[in-house]
């Protein structure tokens, strides 16, 4: 009676992430619960209790300790997965820098949630965007399916480049959204994700040290090496996303252009709002407005060249930021202005603070904003629209 393909399961975004973790067979997973991430941890512990995951699960007393355990485990050559959200991610902050400096290959899932104070559980991307200078690769997911697929791709990426990767999806609209998800076969994932074999690792039989005190020049060199690794991310993730597409029919790029050819106005955003924007774009096209969507999937490192190529020649870009950086405005807005600075045929760039604190953003809202701001004078500051 069910016309749906058999491989589809009804899963929440968070449980899709747990499935991805299970398929990637991490050696170690230090985890600490926090709303709205907790279902990821719960499902992983269920898998573990049932014998379906052989991972060593650690449940330390805080997220700070969880990230410390991730770093140590990764440096022994173990495949490492963890998950957190909001306050938990912020508590890890010190160690997020450490994890990159030590060139670990940790894959972490973060559920985007408003940071306190005041206390809230609502979708807002400030928690992860506030980590943008730590050097973690950052990807933003629109759907439970994309979250599952991206975790698997991130292990390939992180373990190849020795850069930790943080994948993000919005609280509730993705984390708790139950929908049909294709869970790939274990054999497919085993073939796609090679074993983790770092060149250097902690080994009691080898006399070497990680994170020892160094001179200025060595610290400086560590950053240049990090920059060189960052330069490889965009091409590498493109390649990995296409390889995944060849296996599953679901291909991924650092940026996705939806109806951008011939567009006069392009909405630029990240995460769950992209889905709503697609509806708005189709409606606008039906009304004769040549609108498109530019979805930013890879936020760190920022795919500068790809963004410039995508936006060059388009008259108007409207950035929707579900975050607010006090004193600055919308973070994606700031990044886009910087990327397009000095470019010929750059669009006028409007920045809208839309959905900050988890406020609802409907397709109708987006349609109205596009119509209004396409004709409006550009302000340098991001605008509150709700």
């Amino acid at each position, binding site marked *: *009676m*069910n*016309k*749906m393909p058999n491989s589809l399961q*009804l899963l*929440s975004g968070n449980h899709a992430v747990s499935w991805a973790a299970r398929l990637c067979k991490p050696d170690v997973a230090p985890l600490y619960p926090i*709303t709205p991430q907790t279902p990821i941890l719960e499902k992983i512990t269920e898998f573990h209790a049932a014998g379906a995951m052989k991972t060593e699960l650690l449940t330390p007393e805080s997220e700070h300790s969880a990230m410390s355990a991730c770093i140590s485990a990764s440096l022994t050559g173990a495949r490492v997965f963890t998950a957190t959200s909001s306050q938990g991610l912020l508590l890890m902050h010190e160690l997020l820098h450490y994890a990159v400096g030590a060139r670990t290959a940790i894959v972490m899932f973060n559920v985007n949630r408003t940071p306190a104070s005041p206390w*809230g*559980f609502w979708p807002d991307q400030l928690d992860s965007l506030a980590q943008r200078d730590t050097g973690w690769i950052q990807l933003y997911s*629109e759907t439970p399916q994309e979250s599952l697929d991206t975790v698997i791709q991130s292990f390939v990426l992180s373990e190849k480049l020795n850069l930790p990767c943080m994948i993000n999806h*919005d609280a*509730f*609209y*993705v984390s*708790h*959204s*139950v*929908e*049909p998800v294709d869970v790939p076969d274990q054999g497919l994932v085993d073939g796609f994700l090679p074993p983790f074999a770092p060149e250097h690792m902690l080994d009691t039989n080898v006399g070497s040290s990680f994170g020892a005190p160094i001179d200025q020049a060595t610290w400086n060199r560590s950053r240049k090496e990090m920059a060189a690794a960052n330069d490889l991310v965009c091409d590498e993730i493109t390649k990995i996303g296409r390889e995944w597409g060849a296996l599953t029919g679901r291909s991924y790029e650092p940026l996705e252009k939806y109806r951008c050819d011939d567009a006069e106005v392009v909405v630029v955003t990240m995460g*769950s*709002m992209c*889905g*709503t924007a*697609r*509806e708005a774009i189709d409606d606008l096209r039906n009304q004769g407005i040549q609108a498109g969507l530019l979805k930013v999937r890879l936020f760190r490192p920022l795919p500068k060249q790809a963004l410039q190529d995508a936006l060059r020649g388009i008259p108007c870009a409207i950035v929707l930021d579900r975050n607010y950086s006090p004193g600055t405005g919308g973070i994606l807005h700031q990044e886009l202005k910087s990327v397009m600075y000095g470019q010929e045929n750059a669009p006028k760039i409007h920045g809208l603070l839309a959905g900050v604190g988890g406020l*609802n*953003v*409907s*397709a109708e809202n987006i349609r109205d904003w596009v119509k209004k701001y396409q004709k409006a004078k550009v302000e340098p500051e991001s605008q509150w629209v709700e």
Partner: protein
Amino acid sequence: MREILILGRGGQGAQTAGNLLARAFFEQGQYVQTFATYGGARRGTPVVSSLRADDKPIRVRSNIELASGLLCFDDSLLDANFLRSANKDSIIVVNTSKPHAAFAGLGDFRIVPVDGKAIARRNDMGKVVNSALLGAFVAMLKQPDFEIMCDVIKETAPAKKSENVASCKDAYDATLKNFGGV
């Protein structure tokens, strides 16, 4: 696209009801999206479960602003604020021991009172009302297929499978009898 809202208090089963209803639509071949939002993350505070079902993949990720079906687990939550998501054509099933007339003051709405607690009790389900409420809700929505709904309940109930299904059927029959023409 069909849009449904379920409102309850944390611990009452609104989120579970949303998931079971979504599974029934999925089993009959529809794309679904259901998510619960809660402000308090503790028992007793309001929980809203949103459900969309459609013949094509669902892309929109925003709140439901106008639902064609609303299920309310607790009559103390059925107020003007919740009814902002309804219009005069929406079907609103509410768990209550009060008569239909008690809700007349709320305005021109199709409110269907169902005594979920009484139905649950007489089917040996104690205070667990979600199977009964789903039965009543499906009777009024005429969707998803009732046999599929019962199969989903039977398959997913952690305990008292036959009592859960009996409670669902009892509420379905009683609601059709009392309000089938509403």
